[in-house]
Structures are given as structure tokens and as C-alpha cells.
């Protein structure tokens, strides 16, 4: 404030209605909806190993219930076993990282359920205009907000088996990503439909009242480096920030936003008419420039994917269908994992690029042997009990390494 006369600024500032600066947040939101919901739909609808489905990473930790469940599993059983084909824990690490750095940006930028609520909310705004997202009576708000704490407490109890309740019965995120399958309980679909319906009238109801993951993210975001900060000397207490906050937080009376309902959407920052009065910044540092604010959602995405990418490079995470042991059969890429016990003899010959007769000769099977027989079933035949999956794998590896 040294070279800045506050009184002058207050007098000379023109309180024009501010146009929101361009942000690529919506592009990232759209991309995440396509990756998560599109990818899940492809995996559910297409046969296993489909090339199209493999283009979409399986980011399991996006499910709020699943994330809380993963956290509980860690605390319940530290010595439980590695399953490097699961990404949820790397996703969780990414979420923790971006939250510590940037606040609850996961909710505002990456969560597909949040994005869909936001889009429906835009439709709701067109319908209700100024009557959209009215404040909820304080008592009701408190009761509704407590639901997410009950869910947060319920998931660990269900994981450790203290309560017998299938949490996916009420999981809207699960319903959203598995919409095309028959596995989704009707109750979860109803919860999803209800949430989306309420989104027409109230902004992000799931995030505000029900999301257990939001509680964890909100708590971590209290310690975040970047925060929405208010400069008391510049603030003119016009209340625009309060009116624009989806969660009806009283931004105009707080030096920095630490409320766990804040999702760092920055609507309040964008709507503030006084430059520098409300900023998204590091403590004691100048606010981010327009360029950095513009690319921030992209930075968030990169930082979020960093743990998953590093785990992939280090071999700690193997996406579905991938294998680190690669051999070559007749010039064709072929992995040891491809020799699945559920492969038929015909399929194995096809993968190896040889005829079934040639494969039979190598395995010592008669020419008239049924080529539809699964590899795991060959040993069931008393005459060929020595042709186990291990035997077949050894033969294939020996042949391909010649």
C-alpha cells in the first residue's frame, strides 16, 4: 500500500459491472467430463481390451465415495497389498497436491459431477434469473450440511464392516459413470436425478451439502498456499462477492477465505469491482497476473496428473491391460500378460502369429484337439495334465526369445 492512496482509489473507482475474464476452466471441465464419463461409458459398453477404451485413463479416485473409501482402507490396513493396476490412490495424491497448492480447485475445475451441476445451474439461472440459488434458511442449511459429515463417517464404518450398508446404493458419482450398465442401483440413479434436479434451483447442491470428499478437500484447503484474500483497505464492502458466492459465504467480512464450502471458483474475485481488493494470491505476494490466472486451470490439471504420470514412468502404476514384460512373437508386440488363462488355443495361436497346427505341435497336442479349449482347461484333461498355464507361458517365452 506504500505507493497506493486508498482514499483516492475509493473515490475515483468506477463501479462498472465487470465482465468475467476469459478462463480456460470450462475447457478443462469439459475435458474431464469427456475423460471420466466418456471413458467409463466406453469401458462399460465396449468389449474388454477395446482400443478406444484404452485411450481414456481410468481415474478411479474421482469418485468421492471411492476416494474416502481408499483413505479408510489405508488407515485400516497399512500392510494391505499392492495393486498397481489401480489408479485411485495416485489420483488421490494428485488431489491432495493441487489442494495444498491451489485450494479446493478439484471441486471447481476437475470434478465431473460438480461440472454437470454447474452446467445445469446455468440452465437454472436462465429459468429463475434472480430467483436462482436463493439463500437457504440457516437452520436448514446446517441440517443439510451435516449430511456430508454423516456420509463421511458412514463410509469408513461400512469399509471396516461395522455397518452393513452398500454405500453405492446412494452414490450419484457411481451412477453417473456407470449409467449404461445394469449394475447401478435404482436408488443411486434416483439420488443422481434428485441432485441434478435440485441443481436447477440451487447451485452445486451435492458439493454444498452432501459430498464427503468435499469435507476432506475443504479441510486440506485451509492450509493451501494460494487463497482468495481480501484487502481490507481497498474493499468498499459493496457485497457483490457475497451475492455471487454459490455457497453464500460472507466474503466481504473475511480477510482470507478458509471456509470448507469454498471451491475456489473465483467468481467473487471476478465480480469484485475494485482492482486488488479481492485477489487469488500467496500470502504477502502480489496477485497472479492475468496470464497466470488464464492458464491456472491447465496448471492445476498438469499438477494433478503429475503423480499418476510419475507412477506410470516408475512402473508403480500399470493401466488396465498394460504390462511391463514385453516380448516379441513373429515381429508382433506380445506381452506375457497376454497369455491369459482364459485365452483359447486358437486365440493364442492368433496372438503368436502362427497356425493352430504349429501351436499344437509345440505343445504336444493332437491335431484334432478342440481349438476353442481355454488354456486353463487343458490341464483338466487327464491325458494333458502337464500342459498347465505355466507350461504354456514357458513355451511361448522360450519360442519368442529364440
Amino acid at each position: 500500500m506504500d505507493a497506493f492512496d486508498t482514499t483516492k482509489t475509493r473515490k475515483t473507482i468506477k463501479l462498472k459491472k465487470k465482465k468475467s475474464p476469459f478462463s480456460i476452466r470450462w475447457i478443462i471441465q469439459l475435458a474431464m467430463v469427456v475423460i471420466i464419463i466418456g471413458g467409463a461409458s466406453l469401458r462399460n459398453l465396449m468389449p474388454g481390451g477395446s482400443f478406444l477404451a484404452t485411450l481414456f485413463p481410468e481415474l478411479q479416485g474421482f469418485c468421492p465415495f471411492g476416494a474416502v473409501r481408499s483413505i479408510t482402507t489405508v488407515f485400516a490396513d497399512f500392510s494391505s497389498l499392492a495393486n498397481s493396476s489401480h489408479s485411485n490412490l495416485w489420483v488421490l495424491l494428485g488431489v491432495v497436491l493441487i489442494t495444498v497448492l491451489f485450494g479446493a480447485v478439484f471441486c471447481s475445475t476437475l470434478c465431473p459431477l460438480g461440472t454437470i451441476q454447474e452446467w445445469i445451474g446455468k440452465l437454472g439461472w436462465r429459468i429463475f434469473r434472480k430467483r436462482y440459488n436463493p439463500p437457504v434458511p440457516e437452520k436448514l442449511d446446517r441440517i443439510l450440511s451435516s449430511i456430508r459429515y454423516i456420509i463421511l463417517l458412514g463410509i469408513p464404518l461400512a469399509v471396516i464392516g461395522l455397518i452393513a450398508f452398500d454405500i453405492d446404493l446412494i452414490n450419484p458419482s457411481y451412477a453417473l459413470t456407470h449409467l449404461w450398465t445394469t449394475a447401478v442401483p435404482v436408488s443411486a440413479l434416483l439420488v443422481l436425478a434428485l441432485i441434478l434436479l435440485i441443481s436447477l434451483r440451487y447451485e452445486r447442491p451435492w458439493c454444498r451439502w452432501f459430498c464427503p470428499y468435499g469435507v476432506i478437500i475443504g479441510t486440506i484447503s485451509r492450509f493451501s498456499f494460494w487463497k482468495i484474500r481480501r484487502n481490507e483497505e481497498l474493499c468498499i464492502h459493496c457485497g457483490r462477492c457475497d451475492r455471487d458466492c454459490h455457497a453464500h459465504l460472507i466474503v466481504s467480512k473475511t480477510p482470507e477465505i478458509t471456509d470448507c464450502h469454498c471451491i475456489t471458483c473465483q467468481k467473487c474475485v471476478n465480480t469484485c469491482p475494485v482492482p486488488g481488493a479481492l485477489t487469488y494470491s500467496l500470502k504477502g505476494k502480489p496477485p497472479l497476473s492475468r496470464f497466470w490466472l488464464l492458464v491456472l486451470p491447465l496448471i492445476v490439471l498438469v499438477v494433478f496428473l503429475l503423480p499418476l504420470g510419475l507412477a506410470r514412468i516408475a512402473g508403480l502404476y500399470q493401466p488396465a491391460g498394460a504390462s511391463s514384460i514385453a516380448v516379441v512373437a513373429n515381429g508382433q508386440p506380445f506381452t506375457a500378460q497376454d497369455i491369459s488363462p482364459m485365452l483359447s488355443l486358437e486365440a493364442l495361436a492368433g496372438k503368436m502369429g502362427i497356425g493352430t497346427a504349429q501351436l499344437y505341435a509345440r505343445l504336444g497336442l493332437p491335431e484334432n484337439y478342440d481349438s476353442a479349449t481355454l488354456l486353463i482347461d487343458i490341464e483338466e484333461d487327464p491325458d494333458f495334465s502337464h500342459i498347465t498355464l505355466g507350461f504354456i507361458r514357458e513355451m511361448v517365452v522360450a519360442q519368442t526369445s529364440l
Partner: protein
Amino acid sequence: MKRIIMIGVFLLIAMAAAWTCELTYTITNPLGKTTSVAPGKPIYLEPNASYSLAISFYEDHRNCPVAPSATLFLLDGARWNPARDTQPLLLSAPITWKETNSRLNETVATFTTREPGTYTLEILRECPTKAGYSAQLIFVVLPPQP
């Protein structure tokens, strides 16, 4: 400094989470001592002794329609089968799963060790729409103590 420690703690917690999964294994020795078994880490067993391997299978999202009973157990590449009396870890009875609750299935495989050596038990779940599950438990049967 406080923040750096906080970040470190959060990162450690999240990193630790990378070593979890839905199938957990515990082994009980003839004296009744129970130890957790981690895939890829050798478990040392006494020869000619009876052990119980308890497996609990938690269905995370029920993405895989394959029943727990279709889980494959391959000992050194061959089905782990009580009928195969030549197997180095002799299974005493077929593996049958019990549904403890709607998501949790459990089983106990009782087996007897024989010759000293290193044996791999591969646990596989082949799902039509998913990558399924695969883990390898390594059992090392020690030579008899003089």
C-alpha cells in the same frame, strides 16, 4: 516450514495409499500365529507343516461380473487343486468362498508344505470388461532344521 511438513505428511499418507488393494491375505502357521502376506514378498514356511491362508476379497465397485468362485489360483502355473497330489503345497480341500456381507467375500485355503523350494501362487480374476486382478504370492519352504 510448518507448511512443508504438512505437505510432506499429506504426500506420505497419499503415497502409502498406493500399496492397497481389494484382496488381502493372511497366513496362520501351525502354532496359530497369523501374519499378513504381501504379493511379491516371500513368505517363509516350515516343511511338512500345515498352514491356513485366509483371503478376503472386497468388491470395490462391482465392475467385474465374475463371481469370487471364478477366481483362479495357480500354483507354479497349474491350478491349485487338492486332486493334484504332486503339488509342492498340497491343498487339503477345494477353495470355497463365503459371502460375509454384500461386498466382502472370504475364504480359507488350508495346505501342507512338502519339499523345500520357492513356489509362486498366482491369483487371477479375469473380467470381460475390466483388467481384473492379478497377484503373486511367493512361498519359500525352508529346508528342515538339523
